C-alpha cells in the first residue's frame, strides 16, 4: 500500500508544480534590458533605414510584453519578449545584410569599373 502512495504523491506534487508553472515566472528587468539592448544594437546597425518593419514589430512585441507583464500575464510577456528579441535580431541581421549587400554592390561596381578600364587599356595596347 505504501509503495502505491509514494509514486502517487510524487505525481500529484508534480502536477501541482506544473499547474503553478503554467503561468510561469515573470520577465525580469534584466531580460527586458537585454531585449532593449538588442533593439538598440539593431538600430545602430542601421535598422531604422534598412529594416523598419521588423524594428517596428520588435518594438510592438516589447511593448506587448511589458503590457502583459504589467497585467501579470507572464507567459504572454515571456513569449512577446522572446518575439521582440528575435525580431530585433532579425532586424539587425537585415540591416547588416543590406549593408553588406550595399558594400558588395559598391565593390562589384568598382570591380566593373576597373574591368572596363582594363579592357579599354588592353584595347589601346592592341591597337597598332
Amino acid at each position: 500500500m505504501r509503495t502505491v502512495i509514494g509514486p502517487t504523491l510524487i505525481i500529484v506534487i508534480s502536477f501541482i508544480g506544473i499547474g503553478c508553472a503554467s503561468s510561469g515566472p515573470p520577465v525580469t528587468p534584466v531580460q527586458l534590458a537585454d531585449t532593449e539592448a538588442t533593439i538598440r544594437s539593431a538600430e545602430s546597425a542601421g535598422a531604422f533605414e534598412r529594416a523598419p518593419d521588423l524594428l517596428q514589430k520588435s518594438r510592438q512585441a516589447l511593448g506587448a510584453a511589458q503590457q502583459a507583464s504589467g497585467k501579470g500575464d507572464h507567459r504572454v510577456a515571456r513569449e512577446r519578449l522572446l518575439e521582440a528579441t528575435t525580431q530585433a535580431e532579425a532586424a539587425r541581421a537585415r540591416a547588416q545584410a543590406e549593408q553588406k549587400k550595399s558594400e558588395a554592390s559598391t565593390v562589384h561596381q568598382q570591380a566593373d569599373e576597373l574591368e572596363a578600364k582594363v579592357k579599354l587599356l588592353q584595347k589601346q595596347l592592341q591597337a597598332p
Partner: protein
Amino acid sequence: MQNRIWSTSGLLWGVLTIAACATPGPPQELVDARLAIQDAKSANADKRATRTYDSAAANLDVANKSWEKDHDASAVLHQARMAEAEARKAQYAAEAEAADEAIRRENDRKTRHEIALRDAELMVLRKKGQEGELERMKALGKEQEKEHEQAALDAQEKLAAEHARAENEAARLRKENEKLALAAEETRAEREAARLREEQDKLAALSAEQARAEQAEHELARLRAEHDKSRAELISTLSRLAKVREEARGVIVTLPGNIYFNVNKANVKPAMQTQLTKIAKTLAAVPDQKLLIEGHTDSDGPNEYNLSLSESRAESVQKIFLDGEIAAERMEIKGYGESKPIADNSTPAGKAQNRRVEIVLVPMKQ
C-alpha cells in the same frame, strides 16, 4: 425606404451566415511565417544559417500543426511570429553571408582588375615611353640628319670659301711672285748692269792700265832702246878713244898707265890730255852716268906709295874731266894701289896691265 433596409439587412445576414459556416483562414502571422520560411529557403538559409532556419521551420511546423488541429489562431500566433522572426533572421544571416562572399569575391575581382589595370597602365606607359622614345629617336635622327646636312653644307661652303681663298691666295702669290720675280729680275738686271758697268769700268780701267802699261812698256822699251842705243853709241865712241869693257857694275873705260902717265908720275902725259879731253866730252854727253875714277898700280914699290900714286893719277883724270865740263858731283875718285890687279904682277906685261886708271860708268839712280 423600408424595403431597401430590409433587403440590405437580409444580404448582410446571408453573408455573415456563409462566413460563419466557412472554414476560417490562417492568421496573418502564420501566413507571414510561411512566406518568410519560403524566402529563407530561397536565400539558402537552410544551408547558410541552418540552426536558425531549423528552429524557424520547427516553430512553423508546430504552428501549422496546431492550426490544422483546431484552427485556434491564438494558439499559433506566438509560434507563427517566432517562425517568421527566425526565418527572417536566418534569411538575412544567409543573405549577409552571401553578401560577405560576394564582397570577398568582388574584392578578389577588384584586386585582380587592379593588378591587371596596373599591368596595362605599365604596358601603356611602356608603350607610350617606347613610342615617345621612338618619336624622340626619330626626332633626334631627323635633327641629327639636319645637323649632318647643315654640317655638310657648312663644310662645303667652308671648302668653297677655302678654295676661293686659296685661289685668291694663289693669285696673290702669283702676283707677288711675279712682282718679286720682276723685282728680282730688275735687281738682277740692275746688279748685272752694275756688274757690267763695273766690269766695263774694270775693263776700261784694265785696258787703260794695260794701255798705260803698254805705253810705259813702250816707253821703257823706247828708253831702253834709246839707252841701249846711246850706251852702244857711247861704248862705240869710247871704244874708239880707249879700251872699253862691260861688267856687271857697269861700263869700264881703262886708261893704261904706261900710255897716259910717266913712270912714278901722277900727271897725265901732255900728249894724252887731248885724248882724255875727247873722252871727257863723250862722257859729258851722258850726264846720267856716275863716274867712278879708280887708280890702280902694279905691285912694285911700297903699298902706301902705290895707293897715293893711284889716287893722284885718279885726281889728275878728274881734273881734266872737270875741265871737260863734267860736273864734279858726278865723279868719285879712289886709289886702290896694288890691291886689285887684273893680271899677273910677276911679268912685265902683267904689271903694265895692272898699272891703269879705270873710269866706271854707273847709271845714277832716279
